[in-house]
């Protein structure tokens, strides 16, 4: 505040912070002549100078907040007026150039020549060259017409010092003017030039119109004022500061979005892990549920079966007499024997078995023996089960031997040799011979009945039936089913050292059933007695001839 008047800085602050139109109007009024005069000196046209003046104050209205405290407003306005006027001047020159070209083409009416440039142009450039504090001193003294006391206050120095600084500034200005071609320039002449320049007055109504236009323009830009302020502030920074500020400003949204994305990605990863874990748990739970269901089914079945067993056991106990039949067979740990129902005996293989050597880790193997062999020898289990005495065993063997002899006699007289070998033996093209024993059903049945009768007499029907049933397989091969089928025993010579032997039966319907075959380096004893001479002949003839 200077003598009750607010300073430029205070007015500018008031306008910038509160949008105080009166403060701005006062600034316009205070500096209108400076701006208008500067523009007029450069452009030489009042109308254009008024437009430039208006633009400068619009710019002031927009940039008020960004003008740093301590900047002399008069100096700022003077520089802005020069820049704006020169810009306008260049624009006009380009336009005039185009219009000249159009005039040469006869498309535009010719216009009067522009006025000569004013000598004050050197003054403005010289002022721009002055240091800021000298320039500010001269503006205060000559364009604002301040007394030295106020200048001293504004610059924060004493009045004498203000006078001396003004004098030094004028000398400096004169030096610049001399350098720019005004050879006679002195400090006094520079002062007179400045006084003359300051006399340029703007039209009376210009201050009012400029104030309203500038405020309206600034108001229009109010929506972007923040950006304008930001841009203006940015312009006042160095490149490094600008970059730093921008990076800081830009980092916020980038950081926010990065943080949000990063947080979400972490959540996705965590959720995926949880889902994988839940999926595993789900698979286990599904398997557990299925297993529980199967276990439940198994238990239900087990319960049903246990109840059924219970019913049967209860029925047996309640319906049987004092000794239920089932109790006859219950296991007695101390007894050496078990009771076995007779009805079960035919289902058992009472032949016993011979354990075979097996390697460790492999299932034990055994070879089943015959309950009754072709000589009539009875296995130990069957002997013990039937309680067969040694005398009975001997008689049984005699009966079997007698039967076999009779049967062999019958067979021998009926059997014949033939080279008609059944095709199933695959002996085509080879030396082959077959011993055929025709079926002897009538004689065979008589021999069988005789043996059966003998066994019945020796053991009684019950035990004899069991022997007969257990010996069934023995009667098949060794006894030729008592002549019930045609038997074919065929031999073939495959080549030196290689023989084949087939053993088969043909039933009354003509169906051939193989009873076994073998091949290779067979012993001659393997073949039926009647085939042996023939087989021996093959082998002899196949041996290499001595030289």
């Amino acid at each position, binding site marked *: 505040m200077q003598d009750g008047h607010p300073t430029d800085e205070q007015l500018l602050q008031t306008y910038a912070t509160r949008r105080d139109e009166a403060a701005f109007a006062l600034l316009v009024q205070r500096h209108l002549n400076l701006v208008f005069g500067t523009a007029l000196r450069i452009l030489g046209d009042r109308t254009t100078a008024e437009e430039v003046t208006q633009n400068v104050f619009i710019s002031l209205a927009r940039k008020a907040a960004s003008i740093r405290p301590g900047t002399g407003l008069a100096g700022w306005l003077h520089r802005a007026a020069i820049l704006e006027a020169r810009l306008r001047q260049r624009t006009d020159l380009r336009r005039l150039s185009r219009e000249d070209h159009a005039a040469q083409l006869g498309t535009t009416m010719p216009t009067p020549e522009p006025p000569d440039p004013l000598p004050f142009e050197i003054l403005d450039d010289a002022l721009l060259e002055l240091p800021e504090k000298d320039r500010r001193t001269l503006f205060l003294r000559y364009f604002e017409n301040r007394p030295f006391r106020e200048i001293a206050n504004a610059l924060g120095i004493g009045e004498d010092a203000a006078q001396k600084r003004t004098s030094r500034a004028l000398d400096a200005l004169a030096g610049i003017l001399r350098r720019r071609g005004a050879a006679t320039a002195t400090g006094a002449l520079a002062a007179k030039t400045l006084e003359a320049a300051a006399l340029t007055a703007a039209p009376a109504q210009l201050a009012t119109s400029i104030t309203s236009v500038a405020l309206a323009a600034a108001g229009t830009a109010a929506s972007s004022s923040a950006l304008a302020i930001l*841009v203006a502030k*940015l312009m006042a*920074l160095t*490149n490094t500061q*600008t970059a730093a500020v*921008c990076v800081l400003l*830009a980092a916020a949204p*980038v950081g926010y*979005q*990065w943080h949000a*994305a990063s947080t*979400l*990605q972490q*959540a*996705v990863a965590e*959720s995926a892990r949880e*889902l994988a874990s839940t999926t595993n748990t*789900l698979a286990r*739970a*599904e398997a*557990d*549920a299925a*297993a*529980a*269901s*199967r276990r*439940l089914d*198994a*238990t239900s079945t*087990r319960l049903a*079966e*246990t*109840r059924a*067993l*219970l019913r049967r*056991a*209860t029925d047996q*106990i309640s319906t049987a007499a*004092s*000794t239920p*039949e089932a*109790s*006859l*067979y*219950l*296991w*007695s740990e101390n007894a050496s*024997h*078990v009771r076995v*129902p007779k009805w079960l005996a035919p*289902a058992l293989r009472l*032949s*016993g078995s011979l354990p075979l050597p097996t390697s460790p880790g492999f299932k034990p193997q055994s070879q*089943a023996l015959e309950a009754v062999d072709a000589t009539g020898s009875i296995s*130990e*289990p069957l002997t*013990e*089960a*039937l*309680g067969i005495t040694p005398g009975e065993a001997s008689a049984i063997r005699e009966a079997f031997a007698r039967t076999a002899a009779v049967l062999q006699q019958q067979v021998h007289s009926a059997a014949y040799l033939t080279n008609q070998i059944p095709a199933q033996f695959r002996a085509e093209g080879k030396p082959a011979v077959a011993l055929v024993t025709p079926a002897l059903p009538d004689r065979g049945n008589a021999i069988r009945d005789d043996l059966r009768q003998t066994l019945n007499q020796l053991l009684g029907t019950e035990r004899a039936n069991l022997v007969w049933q257990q010996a069934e397989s023995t009667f098949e091969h060794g006894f030729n089913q008592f002549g019930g089928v045609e038997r074919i025993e065929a031999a073939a010579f495959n080549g030196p050292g290689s023989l084949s032997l087939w053993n088969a039966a043909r039933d009354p319907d003509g169906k051939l059933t193989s009873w076994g075959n073998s091949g290779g380096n067979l012993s001659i004893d393997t073949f039926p007695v009647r085939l042996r001479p023939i087989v021996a002949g093959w082998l002899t003839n196949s041996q290499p001839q001595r030289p």
Partner: protein
Amino acid sequence: MTQIVIACLVFVAALAATLHHRQTARIAATELSRLQAEHASANSALAAFQARTATSAKRQAELSLDLSAASAELKAASEAALRARTEPDLATEGAWPTNKPYFYLPKRFLSQIGFTALTPDGTPTPEAIALLGLTPSERDDLRNAWADFRFDLQELQIQSAERMPDTNSVPDPNRRAIQFKLSSLTNQLPRLREQLDARLTEAVGSTRAQILRSPLENRIEDLTTPLGERDCIVGYHAERAVDGGVQHYLRFEAADGSSMHQYAIGFTRTITGEVPAADNEPYRTSVGDPLWHYRHLFGDQPLIPLP
């Protein structure tokens, strides 16, 4: 002016980075929503399975109580039968008493004479009951021991079974197959055998358990594939012939391709020992059929509907 350019460059770069992160965040949010939905669905299914398991466990506990009660009754009935037992009297009756329904056989022959201990469905056979003199309670214990062994073995097979891809690249309604690779269970099977042996000994005593060992091996072979203790591929195959007939078979192949066994499968609408089923009753495998022992893997019905 330079400051403006720098600012613009920085802000454009920041805008691009912001948009990139925003897009990333959007994608992540979408993925998160999907995962959360899947998670919710999985949790729901998990809860359902757990509820089923809990229900089954509850029912299992109830059935186990009933079973214990029934077993106790059966044991009591068996003890009553044992009290009525008469000791074998070979000296008086002779080995083959002519007027009795039984004969005497030395115990030492029981492991030689060869008999079938269990039916294919795991019930003691009449031969086993008679020869080993099993009480109702022992029959029950023997059947349960075998059922537990079979259940545990089949559970191990289910756990180790690895579904093989369908050999048909294009689905063919006239040719279907389901195949699993089964591990040999070399390490687990001996433990199960030991458990079975212990259960048998507990149920019928060591003498009879020893006698049962060999006959039960045949049944164990039914369950452990004909290829023995080797990794194998077991396949359930079905083919429709040109004449409309359908063939089903079970095939076992050694995993190393060295051997293969194949068995034809038959189906029936009736269940053994029960009255014939209605015509709309589906065809199923039956006791004794090769598929019977692999129902836990393939189910019990035809792969291709029978004509």
